[in-house]
C-alpha cells in the first residue's frame, strides 16, 4: 500500500518535471539559423508579453515616455538625410524631448528612414529586437508604406509593417522635417493615449513576423530573437 503510494508520488513528480521541461522547451527558441557551435553564444529565451501598468500609473508612465523620445541613430535608408535637420536650430527637436542615441539599447523610437533592402531589413530586425520596450517605430517615407518608387525592385521590401510593427507612417518622398515633426507629435499623442503597444503586438504575433522575415532573409544566421 505504502509502496504503491510512493510509486504514485514519484510518477507524479516525474510527470510534473516532464511537464515543466516541456514548458521550458516551449519557452526556448530553436535558433535553427545558427550553426550548432554558435548557439551557446546567444540567449535562446522566447520573449514574452509584458502587461502595461494599470490606471494612472500607466498614464503617468506613458506621459514620461512621450516626453522623452530617444531615437535610434541608424540611417536605414536615404530618408535618414531628413533626420539631420531636426537637430539644427531651425527645427530643434530637443524642444520635444527628442534626442538621438547611438545604441538601440537606450533608444525607444526606431525610424525606418525610407526604403529597406533585404540586407538592411536583417539589421533592422536585429536592432529593433535589441531595443528595450516599450519601443516605437516611425515609418519615414513612401518606401516604408508601399515600396515607393522602388516598389518593383528585386531587393526592396514594400511594406515594413509585415516585418516589424509600425506605429506611425509619414508619407512622402521625401517628407520634409516638418512632416517628421508632425509624425513625432502624432506619436506622442498616441503614446499618451496608450495606443502604442507595438512591442506586445510583435510578441503576440511573433511567429507570424518571424515567418515573414525568414521568408525573405535567406541566410538567417542570427538567433530567432536578438535579445
Amino acid at each position, binding site marked *: 500500500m505504502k509502496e504503491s503510494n510512493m510509486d504514485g508520488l514519484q510518477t507524479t513528480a516525474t510527470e510534473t518535471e516532464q511537464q515543466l521541461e516541456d514548458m521550458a522547451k516551449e519557452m526556448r527558441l530553436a535558433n535553427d539559423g545558427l550553426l550548432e557551435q554558435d548557439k551557446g553564444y546567444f540567449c535562446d529565451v522566447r520573449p514574452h508579453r509584458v502587461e502595461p501598468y494599470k490606471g494612472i500609473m500607466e498614464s503617468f508612465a506613458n506621459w*514620461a*515616455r512621450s*516626453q522623452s523620445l530617444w531615437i535610434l541613430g541608424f540611417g536605414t535608408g536615404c530618408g535618414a538625410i531628413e533626420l539631420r535637420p531636426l537637430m539644427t536650430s531651425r527645427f530643434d527637436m*530637443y524642444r520635444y524631448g527628442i534626442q538621438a542615441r547611438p*545604441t538601440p539599447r537606450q533608444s*525607444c523610437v526606431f525610424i525606418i528612414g525610407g526604403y529597406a533592402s533585404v540586407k538592411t531589413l536583417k539589421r533592422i530586425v536585429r536592432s529593433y529586437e535589441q531595443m528595450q520596450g516599450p519601443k516605437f517605430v516611425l515609418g519615414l517615407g513612401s518606401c516604408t508604406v508601399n515600396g515607393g518608387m522602388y516598389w518593383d525592385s528585386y531587393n526592396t521590401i514594400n511594406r515594413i509593417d509585415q516585418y516589424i510593427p509600425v506605429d506611425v507612417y509619414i508619407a512622402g518622398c521625401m517628407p520634409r522635417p516638418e512632416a517628421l515633426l508632425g509624425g513625432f507629435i502624432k506619436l506622442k499623442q498616441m503614446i499618451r493615449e496608450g495606443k502604442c503597444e507595438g512591442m506586445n503586438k510583435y510578441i503576440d504575433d511573433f511567429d507570424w513576423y518571424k515567418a515573414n522575415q525568414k521568408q525573405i532573409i535567406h541566410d538567417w544566421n542570427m538567433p530567432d530573437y536578438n535579445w
Partner: protein
Amino acid sequence: MNEIMTKAWYTLISLFVITNYGLLLGGTMARVRAKVQGRIGQPVWQPYIDILKNNFKRTGIYHGVMFYLGPVFRLAGGLGTYLFIPAVYGSLVFSNFSFSGDLLLVMYFIFFGQLGMALGAGQSGHPYSPLGVSRGLAQMTAFEVPFALSVIAIAAQYQTLSITEIVAAQQGGILNWVAFTNPLAMVAGMISFLGMSMGNPFSVVIAPQEIPIGPPTEMQSSFLGMLQTNRAIFNGAKLVLFMNLYFGGATNIWIMVIKTFLIYLYTVIVDASFPRFRTDQSIRFFLGTPALIGIAAVVLQML
C-alpha cells in the same frame, strides 16, 4: 540613537537637495548649450523625465552579475563622493559624513564608482565598452597630475588636508580664496576639472562619432536611469569639491548654488566651443602646460 536618526535625516535632506540641484543644473546647462547653438533647447526638467522614462521601461537585459552591479557601484561612488565632502561650510545638515576622511579620501573615492562602472561595462562583452574605459582611464591618469599638484600646493599652503579647514582658511573675503592666494594651483585645478567633467575637448570616453557612447553602450532601462541619477549627483559633488578647494566654499546653500553654477558654466562654455582631442593628444596636453603650472604652484610653496 537620536543622533543617528538626526544624521539620517540630515543625510536624506542633503542628498535630496544635491540630486535635485544636479538634475536641474543639468537641464539648465542643456538650455545654455542650446542657446550657444541658437536653439531653444529641451525643457529644464527634461533630465527628470528621462530618468522616469528609463525607470518605466518594461524590459531590460543584463549580461551578468557585474553588469548588474556596475550602475550600483557607479551611483554608490557618486553618493559616497558627495557624502564625504562638506557641501556647505558650517552647516550641520550639509556637513555630510566629512568626518570620515579628508581630501585624500574624496580624491580616491572618485575611483570607486569609475571602477565599478568599468567592470559593469566590461562584462557587457561589447568591445566599445572597454575601449571607452581604456580611453577614459588613460585620460584620467593624465588630468589627475595637474589636479594632484594643485591639491598638494593647497595642502602645503594651508598645511592641512581637511576640506573643512581649507574652506575655513578661505573665509573672510574674496581675496582669501585659493583662486587669489594661489592662482597657479587654481589654474591647474580648473584645467584638470575640464578633463574630469569629460566635456569637449576631452570627451574621449563617450566620443559619439568614434565609439558611440563608450562604456554604457549596453546599459538600458533602470540601469541607465541609475547612471543618469549618478551623473547629476556626481556632477554636484565635483562642483562642490572644486568650489571648496578654490573658491572659498559656501556658507549657505544659495552661495553654493551660485558658485557651482558658475563653475559649471565655465566647463559648458569650453565644451560648446571646442572640438575633441584624440586620447593621446589629451594625455600629452594634461602632462604639458597644466602639469607645469601645477609644478610651478608646488615649487612656489616649497620656496
